[in-house]
């Protein structure tokens, strides 16, 4: 099989992978560097940014995960790259400015260690022999030995282990060959090394790096019955426990027929994925607790409203708040006010007493914010209302589905 056919098979197999971020690391190599702001090199006809050469090392798998196209029992075209082939494609593409670097993952062929070793060798060869300074993200294979993971971390900018499914029960059912211990074991090993290395480099600036851009994970949404509440609670725990940089959510696209997989749901997979990212954002940047975003009484994300608006509607008794005096933390909780907006308000009100025209100029989305905020004690247009009325006004006229792809980017 020639290299072109392999590339065709092994990039196709990697395309649903969610993360394509290349930021968060800056590295200068002999050949190439990593830009900390991230650069898109092209956009696919479906509108996604291409920044990394995203491929599998192999799609030959000894496992049989129910939701996966590459599972052992599927009859598909199979291919495996050699280390040199990947090194060559990566450098050839990089030199032509097609990409920022490499995102390599793999099915588990032979054994977790054999697979991990080969991935590590790719990174090692790129760094050591080619002086490659571009971005490298390796997807660590659960169950691979710590030594290999450790070595891989020395050459990669980011390491990640997929958690795959939001609960142990689902993991047992849908990914019978994988186990929780392996996944969490690798994750905590990487997390620990990452944090230690960060400390180390604070003391010695020249200390070798270990995955300086941190680690992330990905879970498949909609292939198993967990509620959004379970998922977001899990993410929140992962951020706290393993110092993860990101949790990626990947909407399950039905590819295999299997009685163990669920029926199509009311909320489409893509919208659900989008809402989960919004909720995740609230966890990471808005000081929300998982329990606030998704309480027991509302365990799933709303189809019509973003999670912050949904939260504010449920907690309407705590509003409106006064723009001139509310704390930064509370401003962040107002629908229509983002991190930038909240900062601008805090800065501006030192000099003047704010009215609504000021807020508009500061990029606050008044369409939503007006229901939750007062300026100098006044509500905009004397708009007194109830959560039910607000919900009716804010409910999207167009189906959310139409606009959501645009929103996503």
């Amino acid at each position, binding site marked *: 099989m020639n290299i072109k056919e392999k590339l*065709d098979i092994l990039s196709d197999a990697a395309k*649903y992978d969610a993360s394509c971020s290349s930021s968060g690391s800056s590295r200068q190599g002999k*050949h190439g560097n990593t830009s900390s702001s991230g650069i898109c*090199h*092209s956009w*696919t*006809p479906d509108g996604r940014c291409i920044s990394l050469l995203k491929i599998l090392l192999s799609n030959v798998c000894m496992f049989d995960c129910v939701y996966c196209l590459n599972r052992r029992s599927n009859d598909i075209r199979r291919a495996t790259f050699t280390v040199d082939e990947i090194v060559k*494609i990566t450098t050839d593409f990089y*030199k032509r400015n097609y990409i920022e670097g490499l995102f390599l993952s793999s099915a588990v062929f032979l054994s977790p260690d054999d697979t991990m070793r080969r991935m590590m060798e790719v990174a090692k060869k790129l760094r050591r022999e080619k002086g490659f300074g571009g971005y490298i993200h390796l997807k660590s294979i659960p169950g691979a030995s710590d030594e290999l993971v450790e070595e891989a971390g020395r050459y990669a900018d980011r390491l990640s282990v997929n958690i795959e499914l939001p609960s142990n029960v689902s993991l047992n059912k849908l990914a019978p060959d994988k186990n929780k211990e392996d996944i969490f074991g690798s994750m905590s090993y990487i997390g620990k090394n990452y944090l230690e290395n960060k400390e180390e480099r604070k003391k010695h600036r020249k200390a070798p790096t270990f995955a300086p851009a941190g680690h992330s994970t990905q879970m498949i949404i909609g292939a198993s019955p967990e509620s959004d509440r379970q998922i977001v609670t899990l993410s929140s725990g992962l951020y706290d426990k393993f110092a993860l940089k990101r949790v990626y959510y990947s909407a399950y696209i039905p590819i295999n027929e299997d009685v163990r997989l669920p029926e199509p749901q009311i909320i489409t997979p893509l919208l659900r994925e989008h809402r989960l990212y919004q909720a995740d954002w609230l966890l990471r940047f808005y000081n929300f607790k998982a329990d606030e975003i998704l309480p027991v009484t509302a365990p799933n994300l709303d189809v019509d409203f973003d999670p912050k608006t949904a939260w504010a509607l449920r907690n309407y008794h705590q509003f409106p708040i006064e723009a001139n005096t509310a704390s930064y933390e509370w401003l962040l909780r107002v629908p229509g006010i983002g991190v930038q907006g909240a900062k601008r308000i805090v800065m501006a009100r030192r000099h003047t007493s704010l009215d609504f025209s000021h807020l508009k100029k500061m990029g606050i989305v008044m369409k939503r914010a007006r229901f939750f905020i007062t300026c100098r004690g006044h509500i905009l247009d004397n708009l007194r209302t109830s959560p039910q009325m607000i919900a009716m006004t804010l409910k999207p006229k167009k189906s959310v589905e139409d606009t959501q792809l*645009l929103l996503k980017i």
Partner: protein
Amino acid sequence: MKNLYKKTYQYDGTNAGMLCTLADAIKRGEMPTFQTANSVTLNFAEHTHIVDTDEERSEVFLDWLKEISDEYSVRMLIYILMSDCIGYEDTLLKYCLLLRKHENNTMRMQANPIVRSIHDRCYKVTKEIHRFKGLIRFQELESGKYWAPFEPDNNIIVALIPHFTARFADQKWILHDISRQIIVTWDKQILYNKKAADYMKDEKISDAEKDIQQLWQTFYKSITITNRINPKLQAQFMPRRYWKYLPEVE
């Protein structure tokens, strides 16, 4: 009545020439209309001031601006000079006057229409610079150099130098602005050359290049999710006028 005798300043259309024109206008305290040497208009000689282009004087002028205002405000001006400023001289003159009057407070005057206009134009230029950090495509030449033809809206070639010298320090490369026929070459040092055609005349694309472009096309095709095709969204990020030198799109 005064307007009737509004002076016309004529310059050669270059950036240096324009800066000298601005310098003259500020020195003489006039608000002239501007005209470049090759624009066809009626000239009443007595109202036309012909500006001599003097590179050195244009730099002295920029230094002076830096002194009376701040780095940032002048950097905006330098970005704007990468766009086509013919017809925009009037706003630039007003901007310089603002800089003189308000010193380093000018950039905070977000509500001022001149400042806003300067901001918007500058944003367009810097956005294009950022875009081309990604959209530049090199092709390997037989000589071993890597050649990147491109056609930006603005004259941004110089602004791309720091990025590509840091990234491809060990590679010989050529950035080639096709519409302006300017090239910048790197081989351990930067050379700027306005005679692109001469420089390129003996160069040929290498034999291996086609294969690698094909591999790239293969990759591009197979990572596309075909049932979510959305050309509008794609063109929003990557406007069609930039597609000419991208091997992955047809």
